[in-house]
């Protein structure tokens, strides 16, 4: 399956991937409205890490045998059997956050609403928003063997 791969050599720690991730998961699909009207500021599903001088974006690896799915107490965390995308059905998430402890990449985070927050590869778009909006090509959407 195609996944998002990041390259620390090209990352300049600009956080635009987070901004466009928030917008892509908003109702308005608009950066300004998502932040100012929908109150979605801290809901990016991609994490930007920095230990100077290195920075890079980190998000879900959509594992073959995802530990977050194995650990979910409500059945909210799923792996789509067709696309392989691991996503959280937040309407069923109770916020126990066992998935946060299960994820070996620390890629599932507690969201501001107390529920699990994670990358869903923008499953309704042709290309994830973080990839489409990275100014340096530090984030790419590839099959593993294309890397």
């Amino acid at each position, binding site marked *: 399956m195609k996944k998002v791969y990041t390259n620390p050599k090209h990352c300049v720690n600009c956080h635009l991937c987070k901004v466009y991730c928030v917008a892509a998961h908003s109702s308005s699909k608009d950066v300004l409205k998502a932040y100012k009207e929908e109150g979605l500021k801290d809901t990016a599903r991609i994490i930007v*890490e920095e230990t100077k001088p290195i*920075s890079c974006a980190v998000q879900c690896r959509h594992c073959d045998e995802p530990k977050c799915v194995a650990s979910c*107490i409500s059945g909210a965390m799923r792996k789509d059997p067709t696309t392989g995308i691991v996503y959280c059905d937040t309407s069923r998430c109770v916020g*126990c956050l066992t998935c*946060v*402890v299960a994820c070996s990449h*620390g890629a599932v985070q507690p969201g501001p609403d107390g529920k699990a927050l994670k990358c869903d590869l923008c499953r309704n778009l042709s290309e994830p928003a973080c990839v489409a909006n990275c100014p340096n090509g530090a984030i790419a959407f590839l099959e593993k063997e294309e890397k």
Partner: protein
Amino acid sequence: MHYVIIGNSIAATAAIEGIRSQDRQGKITVISEEKDHVYGRPLISYWLEKKVSEQQMPYRDPEFYQEQNVEVLLGVKATSVSFDKKTVKLSNKKELTYDKLLISTGGKPIVPPIPGLTAKNHSCFYNYEDVRQLNQTVQPGQHVLVLGGGLTGLKAAESLHRLGVKVSLIELADRLLGTIMDHDGSEMVASFIKSQGVDLYLGNTITQINSAKNGLSQFILKDGTTLEAKLLIMAIGVTPRTDFLKDSNLTINRGILASATQATNFPDVYVAGDVAEVPDLLTGKTVVAPILPNAFTQGRIAGINMTGGTASFEGSLAYNAIGFLGMHTVSMGQSTLETSNEYEVLKQLDQTKQTYRKIVLQNNRLIGALFIGEIGRAGLYQDLIRNQVDVSSFKDQLLANDFKLLNLPSTVYQSKLAE
């Protein structure tokens, strides 16, 4: 091919999915003592406090059994198994013949013989039916006792407290959550819970129950305290549900002994979940580790192997993430240990913010961790335990609340980013 699964909880569901990932054709029959569609047991406290509706209880979609082409016998119990004839006798007098069998019967709550204990003055807190009954019998303003200060007892106390019930929690040990927390962690949780209005009786237990007026009972504690309450919730633990197998030659220690492939000592018979005894990831000793992620993982592995696959369980690493009245806690591995000749413990405790971070190391490798309050990215620590990564080069970063992948050696984080 006929796959028969005894039990219908998380391990069974994962086994169904495991089987169907390899074999779309074989017949699957699930024997379910409970009458409900599969649900996550930890959800019962959320249902009781009305945070989860009846419609949200099922762990899989309503069409799950149909889509997976599974026949589920609801309200039917397996009464015995003949491993030689490969048959399972059922409570409805029928008998099933299996080609491959999975035993995933889970645990059953331990009920100690307290003088005066009756079916009417106590309830367990284990299945959906327990909380449906509790919802009928307990009213806001009433007083309820919870016996057991472990995870189940605390979740029971939390949900009842949120319903407006007066809760007194009684624990035999001198502290709460003794299996997953050290003294500092237990103390932080205990003082928070008390501040929220739950009464705690530590180092205590119930020695006698008498009936009292108005449908109440009188509970006499070890230290002489007398409490009047509507009901006692029993939450002192569970034990593997193996009664129906006691006359067989199946190897049962505390639980049914499983190999790394989840096989038992009988051919074509597998075991998974809270009823199984499996190797511990770190010590290699066999343990019954009744946590939901283990049940799922073992069930899936058993399912794959029942079709002829070769999946194997890497060993149990216990971990829990539990919130109590808004205080989030995470524990993993040997989280209770203190500094000694053998172990190095790193701690950072902030009473004002009510946060606690603790790391347990042995030979510069993580073997346990405990977090209260700040739990973000706790999974990174779980991975350090699982892979026994040498932390010498970044030990001073381990307690930082922004601990991250980039703190790991570059070869480690680069390979993780490339997964």
